[in-house]
């Protein structure tokens, strides 16, 4: 099945260290079109670091990144965006002091014929996208810091999907949200999946993502413990992978699997 298709993203043998600490050690993960892969692990397991390499925030020490089977050069966030990789960071990474439209287009502003900012067009498009995502959103003129957590989240998500992302990375997408907003994000993920977008969900809480994901990849101490299809394993088995590094029989073990 999936094995015969070309993965949308393949990260092979990625390593990065900060001052002698191996934050990510020889990690390999992949992602297919229209698939949701949950990247799980404790805080400090290296999952955010691994994904920041894909989004261009960090530069890897070694390893390869393949997009659609071709080697990709990702040295900064701009490069990543060229490959259609959009990231929603845990910290949301919005500029608090400017409004929603300015945040949506940050770094890719629409300009008029004279090279000035086309604020009106940006606001119009922002109203359209936000209307689809969060119809209750009305505060287009206020700086983002005046918004609630959920509203800020929708701004961050809108920014990612506005530019036809093919690969979407969501780092703890629901950590700051209430139950209703979490459900909204879940719906959104299903919708994006239908459009053929590949999604990485990163979380330290298995309950957030298990039902949304097609596969899980578990990391521990910078290494990949293993991969499994969610239909083949139970939540408890995945917890065992996260906590102990114990790989159930139906999962594929990685370099970080517990040696028996």
């Amino acid at each position: 099945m999936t094995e015969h298709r070309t993965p949308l993203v393949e990260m092979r043998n990625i390593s990065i260290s900060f001052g002698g600490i191996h934050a990510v050690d020889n990690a390999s993960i992949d992602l297919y079109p229209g698939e949701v892969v949950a990247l799980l692990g404790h805080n400090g397991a290296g999952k955010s670091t691994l994904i920041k390499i894909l989004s261009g925030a960090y530069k890897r020490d070694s390893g390869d990144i393949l997009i659609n089977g071709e080697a990709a050069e990702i040295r900064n966030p701009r490069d990543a965006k060229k490959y259609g990789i959009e990231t929603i960071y845990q910290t949301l990474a919005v500029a608090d002091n400017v409004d929603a439209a300015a945040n949506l287009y940050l770094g890719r502003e629409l300009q008029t014929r004279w090279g000035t900012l086309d604020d009106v067009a940006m606001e119009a498009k922002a109203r359209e996208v936000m209307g689809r995502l969060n119809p209750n959103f009305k505060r287009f003129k206020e700086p983002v810091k005046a918004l609630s957590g959920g509203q800020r989240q929708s701004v961050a998500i809108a920014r990612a999907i506005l530019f036809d992302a093919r690969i979407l990375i969501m780092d703890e997408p629901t950590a700051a949200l209430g139950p209703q907003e979490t459900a909204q994000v879940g719906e959104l993920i299903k919708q994006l999946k239908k459009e053929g977008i590949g999604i990485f969900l990163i979380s330290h809480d298995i309950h957030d993502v298990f039902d949304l994901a097609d596969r899980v990849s578990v990391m521990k101490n910078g290494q990949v413990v293993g991969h499994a299809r969610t239909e083949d394993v139970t939540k408890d088995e995945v917890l065992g992978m996260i906590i102990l590094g114990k790989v159930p029989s139906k999962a594929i073990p990685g370099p970080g699997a517990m040696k028996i």
Partner: protein
Amino acid sequence: MADTLQSSTSGGARQAEANPVTRFFRATEIDTRLLGMVGALLIIWVGFHIMTGGLFLTPRNLWNLSVQTASVAVMATGMVLVIVTRNIDLSVGSILGFSGMIMGVLQAQMLPQLMGFNHPATWVVALAGGLLVGAAIGALHGSIIAFLNVPSFIVTLGGLLVWRGATWFVTSGQTVAPMNASFRLMGGGTEGSIGATASWVVGALACMAIVVAIINARQQRKRFHFPRRPLWAEYFLCVLSCAIVMGAIFVANSYYWPVNIARKYAEANNIPWPEAGLFIPHGIAIPVLMAIAVGIVMTFIATRLRFGRYVFAIGGNPEAAELAGIKTRWVTVKIFTLMGVLCAIASAISTARLNAATNAQGELDELYTIAAAVIGGTSLAGGTGTIAGAMLGALVMQSLQSGMVLLGIDTPFQRIVVGVVLVMAVWLDTIYRARAK
């Protein structure tokens, strides 16, 4: 969900409940903070007017005030961008001194030999030289800050010493004078003003620009079906802005040439000397026009261009800006280069006004510039600030100083007052911001 309920039961109901003053400000979208500053300025003006027995609010004093403010106001516009990105520039006074000295030496010593004495292009070449020097110094500072990761405080503290020392070295400490006659126009004075007719023309153009801008903004919002200001608010803003412009021009035109100069002018042009005296209005001073032009251009850069958007985004969240793919380092280099250019413009104004380039020119200006920006609402925490606010801040600082000079207060005491006012202003602003949240 609480949000939704509130906004769906609508602004209409809420607006009706609010008191008329709140409603007025919401409709006109006037920045209350800026209005507060204008209020403070008026209090200072009226206060000094009463204390000096009617010397402050005269056309002559207001005209002088505008000219004296020009130099610091020009630099304050750049300082806003520097502070918004969480940097500081302590070297602006020294850059002003150095580029002023370069412009002085160019026009008083080098160019007369190369191009001949009083060549009509002397002032252009001198000014261009100064602007280049300012830009180069700014770019150097910006590059060290952005690419070598040295904090801007340290880089520009070094710059403060280096360029002040370099100023001395250009002429071994000698003052360079006099300046070229055309160059001197940038300093204001009787010659360096544009006269009554031209001032009225400038005023009329400004009013037309205001009307066009308001109509254009309204049409843009209409095209995309966005909420608009009520019509009465548009008219009110239009009339108010035009009244302020025309009022300022009326004041500038009410300040007449001093009697001796008018008499000389009459003799030179064979105009018979009238009994009542000859009243030739100054009109707007050229340095003030330059400062206003700089203010407009800088506001345009800060609000209408990508560069300006990036400056504010970096100030709000440097990490987010970097992750959004903004070349933050280049933006920093550009900001400091721009600051250097503005220092050179300010330097042209003050060198021309003094009719000399000296070693000490611009000393302490860095502090007045920072103070102007901060009083004008630029937050040292980064992310907020307006060009207009900073220019108003410069006017507040200069008003305090001029007022105290008129009152005959000693220099040391003037500094004490300015220092206390700076701290008080920022304290009041902190309270305002805490409430606004």
